């Protein structure tokens, strides 16, 4: 028995050696915000498929919840220690993650942000992401046309304070609608007079419902609802339906998950801006293989595209129907 620890250590070492042997293939790390959001689940699937197809080894890790910086820091350290040459990360905390990214880069690791930028964006080698401001603008333009000149009383169901993605979608929506708003670099939420209620939802359905209920108490005449994502939109629809107001209120959202697209087809959500996690992951893996082969790093910002999905097209705004959205959606 006394020799057991030594034996185990020996076995572990030989296993590690064997693993290192198999790793002639480039090693790419993927760190997502959580393993519970279908968006990131899809991103991971996409990265795994791309890595398998191109002969790379993928390691993945995630935080426990949105905003969990410590877990992402640990994941970077572990992946660097295990020999990853490229790390793809969706930063949970745009600023706090930067020192860890810097340390990895100093060891020659290429770091690419997917989906969410760091703050400043130049802290990573490249960013492959949706243009969230544009995603907001598209649903703002759609809402403007769908309202047909009626004066808007707007509720915004936001993410949580201080997150760039939440601010970009919110401000983009208001700008697209033609209201006074902040630009894409500003992380403050704009609040023109037409916005009669603002509430945080953490992108969660139950909190979205509570927020909408409270907003309706504040102003029963709300006729346009912007939501940070489709679960929040589903919660808002539930609240409006219970109040008997679902027919007269326009709900717009961002994401393009399959459930959200179904809600568009069913008329619960008027329009949503669809984004493409699979594309972000595939491009990230390709950049990782390129770096391993040629030593050339990716750089700058690459827009992975966004499409407006709406059941009823409106004049002057290009949109795709729900059937097209279903072909490209993620989740179940």
């Amino acid at each position, binding site marked *: 028995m006394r020799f057991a620890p030594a034996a185990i250590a020996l076995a572990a070492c030989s296993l590690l050696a064997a693993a290192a042997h198999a790793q002639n293939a480039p090693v790419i790390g993927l760190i997502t915000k959580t*393993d519970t959001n279908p968006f990131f689940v899809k991103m991971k699937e996409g990265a795994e498929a791309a890595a398998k197809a191109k002969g790379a080894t993928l390691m993945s890790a995630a935080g426990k919840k949105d905003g969990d910086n410590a877990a992402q820091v640990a994941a970077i350290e572990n992946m660097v220690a295990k020999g990853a040459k490229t790390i793809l990360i969706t930063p949970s905390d745009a600023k706090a993650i930067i020192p860890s990214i810097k340390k990895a880069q100093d060891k020659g690791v290429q770091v690419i942000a997917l989906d969410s930028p760091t703050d400043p964006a130049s802290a990573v080698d490249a960013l492959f992401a949706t243009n969230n401001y544009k995603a907001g603008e598209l649903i703002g333009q759609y809402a403007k046309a769908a309202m047909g000149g009626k004066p808007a009383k707007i509720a915004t169901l936001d993410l949580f304070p201080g997150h760039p993605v939440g601010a970009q979608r919110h401000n983009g929506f208001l700008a697209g609608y033609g209201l006074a708003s902040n630009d894409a670099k500003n992380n403050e939420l704009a609040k023109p007079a037409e916005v009669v209620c*603002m509430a945080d939802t953490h992108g969660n359905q139950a909190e979205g419902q*509570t927020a909408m209920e409270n907003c309706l108490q504040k102003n029963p005449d709300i006729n346009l609802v912007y939501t940070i994502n489709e679960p929040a939109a589903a919660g808002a629809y539930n609240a409006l339906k219970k109040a008997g107001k679902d027919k007269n209120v326009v709900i717009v959202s961002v994401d393009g998950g399959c459930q959200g697209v179904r809600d568009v087809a069913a008329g619960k959500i008027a329009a949503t801006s669809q984004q493409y996690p699979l594309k972000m992951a595939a491009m990230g893996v390709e950049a990782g293989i390129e770096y391993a082969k040629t030593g050339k790093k990716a750089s700058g910002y690459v827009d992975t595209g966004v499409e407006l999905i709406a059941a009823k097209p409106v004049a002057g705004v290009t949109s795709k129907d729900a059937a097209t959205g279903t072909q490209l959606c993620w989740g179940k």
Partner: protein
Amino acid sequence: MQHWKQHIAQLGPFIALVIACAIFGATAPQFFSGENFSLILQQVMVVGVIAIGQTLIILTAGIDLSCGMVMALGNIVMTKFAVDLGLPVPLAILCGLLVTAAFGLLNGLLVTRIKLPPFIVTLGTTNIAFAITQLYSKAQTVTDVPASMTWLGGTFQLGGTNIAYGTVLMLLLYLGIWWWLRDTGAGRHVYAVGNNPEATRLVGIPTDRVLLGVYVMAGVFYGIASLLSVARTGVGDPNAGQTENLDAITAVVLGGTSLFGGRGVILGSLIGAVVVGVLRNGLTLLGVDSVYQVLVTGILVILAVTVDQLSRKGGR
């Protein structure tokens, strides 16, 4: 002296509620309406019912960190069994209740048989319940839940106000447990175990069996809360329970139940849950940033435990 201080501890939450209502009533014209109060009750019914189970455990000087995650697991089991497996709704609900009760039993067995501290046991089981929820649901929301499963989310008219069946159920559960704790031998044993487990054992009360019963009962209440959360949102939500986990403990503490065990009134937890709901609702009506709600809740929690500690020192 002792009575005076204990009454402050018990009336504290009620006073906080009255003050919050007075401030919001004076500043937000929409605050005082039957409809608004009915909504606040609907918004707190899930956390309110979880807080019943949590109160029972805290009365025994324990704590349950797994409550919200066990509720989420029950929520997913009920909806997936009904939607994916096509089980009849009552059977699916029963399965959900069995799962949450089983988690209560597991917590209780680890606490009583292996004598592990409840904090550590439930820290473990909260992660286990969370992981099972995510694995089983594949992190996907369960939709197309049968209407009969969301019946408790429906409303009836009373004096021009829409009242949800679920809130009535929550109030009945509180009244039932209040009576049980006050007027039955088993209920008083819960207080006794929390006050002085050694003395309780020496007078011949099977303390382990009381504890085990409390944990299983708590599990059943979490299961009822699962059903209420399905009824409220109309879906099976794998991300449910994440705010409720600590909100339930907050409600119990705000409600004046002592974390040292043995002291507290169950109705205080209801008031504690409502205080949190009133703050959220009132601050939204005033257009105040939601972070201030978190700030005020934190201050109230500190006040509540301070009052408890001071009254305890004075009393003994």
